[in-house]
């Protein structure tokens, strides 16, 4: 059964090619597009069951397909590597992708580029699975670039509006900056350690590099650069809010559940490297902590529904980075799994709301929708509670609680990071319930024109179930992952309180956040309005709305200088030579034209002058 592993990325890629090459009817496209992901999901389940029943001796299964190339010592293979980490990622990615594809068959129906859409989506899933299952960093990078390409293509899917193209371009360029760092890291790793096969790399790194060596630090930081770009963390997070220009299934799949977590996966895969470079690991934690706070504040001020969710994604991935940074590896992956469920569900619900209101994105123009869109309301509420971390019932509470506990108790944890994570919970609860109250409660401001159909409701229901039940598998999950990603507790348990106390604090903070949201956005909306219109309030509001000014900063630092340079280079001297030739030609032409004046005496004078000159030449030479 394990030999079927290659089908998992293979089927989506084949179906992408089919959809790209042939023009098919909408029904056929929907069937092919969705069934390919369903098949891939089924195969991944079969492989998982086989793995669990008869686990391979070394704890991992490698399937070599063929040797990619062999150039001067670098010989990567097209090989797929299966261990508990990649199993979890594979199962989650295929299953959530399948649900989102099902949703998209109805969401995108009637669109001109239906076939194109599903071709891109399938290609994306294929590349993401290649990334997850890659056995060496070069194949991982192939998948990495592939998902970047599909993200660009899908953000700018409605290409007729140039703003969408600009958003896609921005996403591509910003992640490119990270990708360049990552490639340099790959060069460094190959140069120093002679291989790019991940397992070999980790072994050799441990052998050759002492803890704290500068080579390890550099490599880890460079790989972190790539991860930061793809996962939209500080300082490369500016592309994700603009990426909401793409269709909602795209936002759900790529920018919530799967692609943006590729950075988390990369760091988890190469975690040995980070253990060898504690300062890099600390950088990961700091980045995660800073991002989760910054994005939380920004999410509080947005009025576009999808942008709130985008900032929320940035913030939750910050949690995952925080977990990775403190050494709580399994907590990060667990949060990835629950986040995939509830964030995808939030986006799908948002898609239902936006479609029903005929394209309205502004939450201040929505309201009171819980009666007209009951399914959307209840699933959105469940997902929102999971996101904010409603204790005991929701999956999100379990995963986030684990991370918060790890921020204190894991190897690199500290009280400061624990406090930051806790404040994040407050912010998350606040902005989540702000969103829910403004959209579903209160007065209805817009008309509902469409109700969702079966294809859109069923995935929401399934994901809602998973958002609740997904948390209960925490213990078997940890055991399953332990071989690959051990939980590092602090050496000396200088814990002054236990895990339950931490959970208690989290619950209290959660309730505080919900309560404040209730007061501000359900009860006395005027108070919120006065807050934002005060001097400090409005300044802060604008600052957080503009993502802490980072877009403005990058514009001044990078974009405008490059544009200025391009314009300055346009009218240079060398161009002048070419245009000069043309201009001289034109001048001569004009001059010659004037000699054809049509006047008799002019021509006679020309003849006489010519005669004089000729005789003169004959005389005096």
């Amino acid at each position, binding site marked *: 059964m394990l030999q079927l592993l290659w089908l998992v990325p293979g089927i989506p890629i084949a179906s992408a090619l089919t959809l790209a090459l042939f023009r098919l009817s909408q029904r056929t496209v929907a069937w092919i597009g969705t069934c390919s992901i369903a098949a891939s999901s089924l195969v991944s389940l079969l492989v998982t069951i086989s793995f669990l029943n008869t686990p391979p001796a070394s704890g991992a299964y490698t399937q070599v397909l063929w040797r990619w190339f062999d150039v001067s010592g670098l010989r990567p293979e097209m090989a797929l590597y299966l261990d508990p980490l990649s199993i979890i990622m594979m199962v989650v990615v295929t299953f959530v992708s399948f649900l989102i594809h099902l949703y998209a068959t109805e969401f995108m129906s009637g669109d001109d580029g239906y076939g194109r859409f599903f071709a891109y989506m399938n290609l994306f899933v294929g590349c993401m699975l290649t990334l997850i299952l890659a056995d060496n960093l070069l194949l991982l990078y192939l998948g990495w670039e592939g998902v970047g390409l599909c993200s660009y293509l899908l953000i700018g899917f409605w290409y007729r509006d140039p703003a969408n193209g600009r958003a896609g371009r921005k996403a591509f360029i910003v992640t490119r900056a990270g990708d360049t760092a990552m490639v340099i890291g790959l060069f460094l790793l190959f140069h120093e350690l002679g291989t790019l096969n991940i397992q070999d790399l980790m072994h050799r790194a441990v052998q050759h590099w002492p803890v704290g060596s500068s080579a390890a630090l550099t490599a880890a930081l460079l790989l972190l650069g790539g991860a930061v770009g793809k996962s939209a963390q500080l300082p490369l997070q500016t592309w994700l809010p603009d990426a909401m220009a793409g269709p909602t299934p795209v936002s759900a799949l790529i920018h919530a559940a799967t692609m943006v977590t590729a950075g988390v996966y990369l760091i988890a895969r190469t975690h040995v490297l980070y253990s060898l470079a504690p300062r890099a690991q600390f950088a990961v934690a700091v980045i995660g902590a800073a991002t989760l706070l910054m994005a939380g504040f920004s999410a509080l001020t947005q009025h576009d529904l999808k942008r709130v969710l985008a900032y929320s994604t940035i913030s939750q991935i910050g949690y995952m980075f925080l977990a990775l940074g403190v050494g709580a590896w399994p907590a990060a992956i667990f949060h990835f799994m629950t986040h995939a469920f509830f964030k995808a569900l939030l986006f799908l619900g948002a898609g239902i709301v936006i479609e029903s209101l005929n394209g309205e994105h502004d939450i201040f123009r929505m309201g009171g929708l819980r009666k007209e869109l009951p399914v959307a309301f209840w699933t959105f509420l469940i997902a929102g509670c999971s996101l904010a971390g409603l204790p005991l019932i929701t999956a999100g509470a379990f995963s986030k609680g684990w991370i918060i506990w790890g921020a204190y108790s894991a190897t690199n944890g500290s009280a400061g990071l624990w406090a930051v994570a806790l404040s994040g919970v407050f912010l998350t609860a606040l902005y989540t319930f702000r969103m829910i109250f403004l959209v579903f409660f209160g007065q209805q401001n817009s008309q509902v024109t469409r109700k969702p159909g079966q294809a859109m409701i069923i995935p929401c229901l399934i994901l809602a179930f998973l958002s609740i039940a997904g948390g209960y598998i925490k213990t078997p999950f940890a055991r399953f992952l332990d071989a690959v990603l051990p939980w590092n507790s602090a050496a000396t348990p200088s814990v002054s309180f236990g895990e339950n106390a931490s959970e208690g604090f989290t619950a209290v903070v959660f309730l505080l956040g919900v309560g404040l949201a209730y007061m501000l956005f359900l009860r006395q909306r005027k108070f919120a309005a006065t807050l934002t219109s005060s001097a400090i309030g409005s300044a802060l509001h604008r600052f957080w709305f503009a993502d802490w000014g980072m877009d403005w900063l990058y514009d001044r630092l990078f974009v405008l200088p490059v544009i200025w340079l391009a314009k300055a280079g346009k009218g240079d001297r060398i161009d002048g030579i070419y245009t000069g030739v043309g201009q001289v030609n034109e001048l001569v032409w004009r001059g010659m*034209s004037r000699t*054809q*004046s*049509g*006047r*008799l*005496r002019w021509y*006679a*004078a020309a003849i*006489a002058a010519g005669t004089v000159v000729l005789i003169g030449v004959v005389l005096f030479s």
Partner: protein
Amino acid sequence: MNGVPMAYGLILAGILFALGLAGLLLRRNLLLILVSIEIMLNGAGVAFVAAGSRWGQPDGQVMFLFILAAAAAEVSVGLALLLTYFHRRQTLDADSMNEMRG
């Protein structure tokens, strides 16, 4: 009996020719342009006759006769054209015939 040195005859021819050329370039009236052309032809004829006389051959005078015939033919056609143009445009301005320009 001594005659006139040929050089003087040629110089006279040159002066007459140059004057004809000056008149051609100077005047705008078509009629007077034709007159200047006649003056030039006449000057050329003086040169021929002077040279023929110096060498004692009749060829110079023969040449002058041919020039005379050509001048007569040219004048008649030229004046006919001038009359046609005048009927059309009611002017004898040489500069008004400038449509073949550009």
